[in-house]
């Protein structure tokens, strides 16, 4: 079964490249999810697939269907908008849940941060709860 449309060469090469780059980025992101050592590092890895990887595959899909059906097919933009606005919300809440659970178990990952110290390079295990809510307003 082969339902692929016969596109002009430039379009099929572009579609192929976009699909390969997108799926490659998603794979690299998932490998990072396995390779990184701490949770806070792992959060960064899947964003590869859900930002540029997703955009590449959506662009490939838009290009392919627009050429194959000879009309502009742009409804893939919707998936792009939904995923780019929803993924940050989930990751944000997940990181906050993780900070909360770490604090509950007595190892505050943000313990070394204060007025005098702007950067903490490693996870310092100690207790202490910073004041204020950790949730940004509007999310």
């Amino acid at each position, binding site marked *: 079964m*082969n*339902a*692929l*449309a*016969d*596109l*002009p*060469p430039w*379009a*099929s*090469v572009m*579609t*192929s*490249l976009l*699909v*390969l780059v*997108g*799926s*490659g980025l*998603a*794979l690299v*992101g*998932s*490998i990072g*999810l*396995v390779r990184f050592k701490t*949770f806070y590092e*792992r*959060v960064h*890895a*899947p964003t590869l*697939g*859900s930002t540029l*990887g*997703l955009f590449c*595959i*959506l662009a*490939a*899909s838009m290009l*392919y*269907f627009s050429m*194959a059906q000879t009309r502009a097919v742009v*409804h*893939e933009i*919707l*998936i792009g908008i*939904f*995923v780019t606005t*929803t*993924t940050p*919300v*989930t*990751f944000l*809440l*997940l990181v*906050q*849940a*993780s900070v*909360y*659970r770490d604090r509950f178990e007595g190892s505050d990952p943000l313990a070394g941060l204060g007025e005098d110290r702007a950067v903490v390079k490693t996870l310092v295990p100690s207790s202490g709860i910073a004041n204020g809510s950790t949730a940004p307003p509007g999310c």
Partner: protein
Amino acid sequence: MSIFVLTVALFISKVFLTLAVATAAYRILRGPRAQDRVLGMDTLYVNAMLLLLVFGIGSGTTLYFEVALVIGLLGFVATLTLAKFLLRGEVIE
């Protein structure tokens, strides 16, 4: 010729995305903590959504687009609910 290039590219990208789903599943099974499993599930559904979009290009129908859209929206709700559960221990307050 152009069909051949596209067929090969789609096959390779399906292999890539299947491997990505497998690594995310490994993270779900391995843990070590609950938030790692939730993160693995989030990655898994995004990769599955990408896989469906690639299937859609291969099959030439826009039907897969709607499936991908639904997966994207429901996966968001699922991950959000799980994260909320980890944060408070209750889903609905």
